[in-house]
């Protein structure tokens, strides 16, 4: 019976030539993507694109940097300058992009294993420096791409290929980790909370500072199958039942265990100077200090040179092949 219906189209089904409104920001020449049915990564991409559109981001200046893993493939599906780097090293790569050209709007999208295990050191330092970038950590509690190994976020007792008898370790509380390291915007949503995710992404894009956004996503093929949690719909229902929205909650309370309720929301939204702010202040300070009193250069011209060093991505420098970057006084 089902097979016979394959040629019957209901009146809502359109032809394949139609375009989805999001197609212009996606690399349609690489679709369909590799993610499984019931995986939330496509949803994260959808919300990312919607948020960028909503706040009128200049797509030419947006960069996406990702690491290795299922989430790491996100950079490859967005029609933006994208960098698919090595495992755990998306954040330092993004640091370099950002510091050399602070006008770029950089988002790091990577998974829990990539950002918090091998990349953990870079995460905490980038947060500590309050680098102006957005880090979207898609947490599916597992190492997906490599077949389902235990991750630093796998809840205690849950099974994975490298913890076949149950995970022995206490998982990280990612919002707490990020907040205590110095992140200035810390939030967590699930892939069910699409509108809230869009709002928080948009806020993060427009905020100056280090934003750490944890997105809880199902991994039906590996994490959930091994732990008999059903399919993607089951996980999303579990999100609906068990997630508790509490804006401004103390990140300390944001632990996730296998069975209980867990917090989502915008936990932290503060302001403090970014690394670039401090760097620019320093450059101005030293320029004034070393300005000679002699006739050759007046103090004003040195100060105005120091102000000129506040960068704005010099496009004509790019034509001559010389780099455009932070404080470029040269061409």
């Amino acid at each position: 019976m089902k097979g016979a219906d394959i040629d019957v189209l209901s009146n809502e089904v359109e032809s394949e030539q139609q375009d989805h409104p999001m197609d212009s920001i996606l690399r349609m020449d690489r679709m369909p993507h590799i993610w499984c049915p019931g995986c939330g990564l496509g949803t994260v991409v959808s919300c990312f694109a919607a948020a960028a559109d909503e706040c009128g981001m200049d797509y030419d200046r947006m960069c996406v940097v990702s690491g290795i893993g299922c989430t790491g493939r996100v950079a490859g599906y967005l029609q933006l300058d994208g960098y698919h780097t090595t495992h755990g090293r998306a954040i330092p790569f993004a640091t370099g992009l950002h510091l050399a050209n602070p006008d770029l709007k950089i988002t790091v999208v990577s998974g829990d294993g990539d950002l918090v295990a091998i990349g953990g050191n870079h995460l905490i330092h980038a947060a500590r420096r309050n680098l102006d970038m957005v880090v979207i950590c898609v947490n599916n509690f597992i190492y997906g791409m490599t077949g389902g190994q235990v991750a630093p976020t796998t809840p205690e007792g849950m099974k994975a290929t490298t913890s076949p008898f149950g995970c022995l370790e206490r998982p990280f509380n990612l919002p707490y980790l990020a907040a205590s390291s110095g992140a200035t915007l810390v939030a967590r949503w699930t892939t069910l909370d699409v509108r809230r995710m869009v709002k928080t992404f948009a806020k993060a894009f427009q905020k100056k500072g280090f934003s750490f956004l944890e997105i809880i996503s199902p991994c039906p093929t590996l994490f959930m199958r091994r732990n008999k949690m059903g399919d993607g719909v089951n996980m999303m229902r579990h999100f609906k039942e068990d997630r508790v929205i509490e804006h401004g909650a103390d990140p300390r309370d944001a632990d996730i265990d296998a069975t209980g309720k867990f917090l989502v929301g915008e936990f932290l939204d503060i302001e403090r100077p970014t690394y670039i702010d401090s760097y620019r202040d320093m450059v101005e300070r030293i320029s004034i200090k070393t300005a000679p009193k002699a006739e050759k250069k007046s103090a004003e011209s040195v100060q105005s040179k120091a102000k000129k060093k506040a960068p704005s991505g010099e496009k004509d420098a790019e034509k001559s092949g010389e780099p455009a970057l932070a404080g470029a006084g040269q061409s």
Partner: protein
Amino acid sequence: MQNTVEAAPKFWRTPLDEGKVTSPIGEVLTIPERCKGCGWCVEFCPKNVLTTSDSFNSKGYYYPVVGRTDECVDCRLCERICPDFAIYLRRAPA
């Protein structure tokens, strides 16, 4: 929660803006070949507009179809939540 028919709400008095404010109406468009049958649009549509088709696409996934044609209010949750960019909305003229 799936596929139950909601009764029309009963108000104890007529809302002051009745007749001035109308809900938007959405037209659901699907790209069945992109669908991977995750079921989220069907599950979470707040107006239970969608239902799973009896037909499947060339990859064997059962894609969504509109069940309750007049109920879509163009909230675009399905468009946002779909991981495969397989469903989107057009606002129908008022």
